[in-house]
């Protein structure tokens, strides 16, 4: 794991490589197609590295164990797919309110329910934002290639640790299972951000205090900073409160810490947007088809651009603002019935035409389909 390596890897395998490269030392999970390779990879590799792999009794227990381990100082990962992701929702909220870093990979298959377990979809995008009860802050990334699965896994860990928040990485089954030739960076070249540990004497430690980033330092259980962690709304000491001012102070901070980080959290990749008459918005494997469609159209003289989303939530509105007022139309391509489409509509506020192109039969949208739809728009 020292120098850069060239490998043929699945997206799921790249998640494993990245997690280990960024220092993940704890995995708890429960098998489910099409994510199981992540668990199997971690099971094969963690023990020799002295990290912990544990298969728990279900997805809820898996996330519970991850949260416990994170509180005890570990860098933690779990992976699942739709049904398991639904089960994890309650504890995702716990991680949000108690500000526990954790990376959750959801390799999306077609739902609802058991659905089409081996077919790709992007149907869990809105769920990733809104799946748990109550207002909560969340970061959701999504990758379009094996290398991006690697990079965004690294990013997911770094954001989770930096913002003390759960970060969800959505892969679709295509990216999770496809093998791609990929060059992985040398271990030293992988950025590693660690949560900030308290440096004050334990008596001064306030586990949920306001700081200039909004993110309080995080002590590990057993490191001398005895404190209380709860899923109840709590004060800056971590104890339950029902005082209006304390409630607001605590929950506002949860959102502000993310808002302050928008710039580094909201990742997108633009192609040919500068002079575009019409733009495609896509993410995950669909962005690959979109890219190919764009190149075909450009080669035919159509001024088409592509915005590839790598961050889905918080919704990277700033990236859209740059062109929605300028292009004639936008086509949002997704393997669902139009989820990010709604966000684009909201952000566009009538400034351009917004159309959608969707496929929900368990197949990747093809470049041809996108090119055809775009031809009607430019």
């Amino acid at each position, binding site marked *: 794991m020292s120098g850069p390596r060239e490998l043929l890897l699945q997206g799921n395998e790249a998640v494993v490589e990245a997690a280990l490269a960024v220092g993940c030392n704890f995995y708890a999970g429960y098998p*489910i197609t099409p994510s199981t390779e992540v668990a199997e990879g971690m099971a094969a590799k963690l*023990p020799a590295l002295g990290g912990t792999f544990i298969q728990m009794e279900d997805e809820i227990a898996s996330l519970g*164990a991850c949260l416990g381990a994170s*509180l005890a100082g*570990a860098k933690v990962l779990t992976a699942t797919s739709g049904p398991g992701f639904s089960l994890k929702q309650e504890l995702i909220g716990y991680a949000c309110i108690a500000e526990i870093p954790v990376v959750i990979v959801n390799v999306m298959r077609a739902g609802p329910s058991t659905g089409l377990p081996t077919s790709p979809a992007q149907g869990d995008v809105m769920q990733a934002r809104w799946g748990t009860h109550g207002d909560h802050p969340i970061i959701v990334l999504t990758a379009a290639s094996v290398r991006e699965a690697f990079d965004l896994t690294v990013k997911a860990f770094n954001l989770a640790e930096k913002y003390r928040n759960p970060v969800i990485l959505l892969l679709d089954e295509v990216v999770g299972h496809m093998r791609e030739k990929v060059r992985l960076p040398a271990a030293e070249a992988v950025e590693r951000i660690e949560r900030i540990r308290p440096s004050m004497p334990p008596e001064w430690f306030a586990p949920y205090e306001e700081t200039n980033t909004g993110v309080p330092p995080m002590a590990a259980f*057993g490191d*001398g900073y005895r404190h209380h962690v709860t*899923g109840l709304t709590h004060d800056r000491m971590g104890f339950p409160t029902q005082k209006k001012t304390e409630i607001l102070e605590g929950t506002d901070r949860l959102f502000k810490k993310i808002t302050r980080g928008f710039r580094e959290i909201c990742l997108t990749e633009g192609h040919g947007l500068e002079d575009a008459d019409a733009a495609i918005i896509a993410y995950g494997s669909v962005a690959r088809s979109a890219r190919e469609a764009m190149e075909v159209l450009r080669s035919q003289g159509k001024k088409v651009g592509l915005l590839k989303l790598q961050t889905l939530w918080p919704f990277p509105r700033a990236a859209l603002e740059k062109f929605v007022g300028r292009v004639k139309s936008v086509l949002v391509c997704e393997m669902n019935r139009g989820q990010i489409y709604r966000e684009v509509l909201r952000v566009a506020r009538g400034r351009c035409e917004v159309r959608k192109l969707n496929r929900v039969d368990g197949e990747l949208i093809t470049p041809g389909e996108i090119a055809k739809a775009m031809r009607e728009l430019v």
Partner: protein
Amino acid sequence: MAAPVPNREIIHQYLRHAKKFPHIWCPGCGNGVVLGCLLRAIHQMGWTKDEVMMASGIGCSSRAPVYVDFNTLHTAHGRALTFATGVKLAKPKLNTVVVMGDGDALGIGGNHFIHACRRNIDITAVVVNNFIYGMTGGQQSPTTPQGARATTALWGALEQPFDIAQLAAAAGATFVARTTTYHVRELEGLLVKAFAHQGFSVVEVIAACPTCYGRRNKLGDAVGMMRWQKDVAVSVEKAQGMTAEELGGKIVTGVIASREAPEYVTEYAKLCARARELEQAAARQPAPPKPSPERTDMAANEPR
């Protein structure tokens, strides 16, 4: 028996006394008694406060951690053991104690409970069994005796209650004990044994919920309920000589099961060592072929 540590000392050494007291529990609630015994037993173990992690789920009993000056973790309803498993694995030096109600541990959390037993991980689970969902106001719990009343069992519970201790033993727990809050000295002693045990240990404590269980079931107030505990308790030793009929309505107290078995965290550490050795051995030889991707052919069924 040595004189117990007086409350004066317990309060100052272990309680978050400055802000959190008087505690939230009702007059005569068994949870306070259990908490006192827990603290005395921890004191006996000689553990420093930094070395103790106390977790809980949601319920009246699960409020315990907020009152004590350890590393404390108030999780979600039923999930305490899953969090505790993560804590223990990530930091094995932490002495991990989990306090749960009967509903928390055996209702919504039943699966985590039996799996923790099976896993034999070095955690002590204290189940405060008051036969009822206290915090939500008195609904039936998985230990509500057949015929006993609850707000969701107005004419008496129909189901058989779990015998928590028996279930724990059958699921693989290697130390299982039970007593009541009346038997405070026995309770402290059993907790010490459980803490000292290597592996998953369960201590079931029969406790009073005068507010939601006692009154509705004509067991009286706090005093009456504690008297009832005194009356129905039979020691394991004594129970051995009794018939099933004689044991009807009784509660057997003492060590119900105790055996040695490999403990999970220790075994996992060994596995890590083995994996590293194998890897080093392999590094000395040419790289082994990668696993065949064909496995995925075989797993090509749909519903998972």
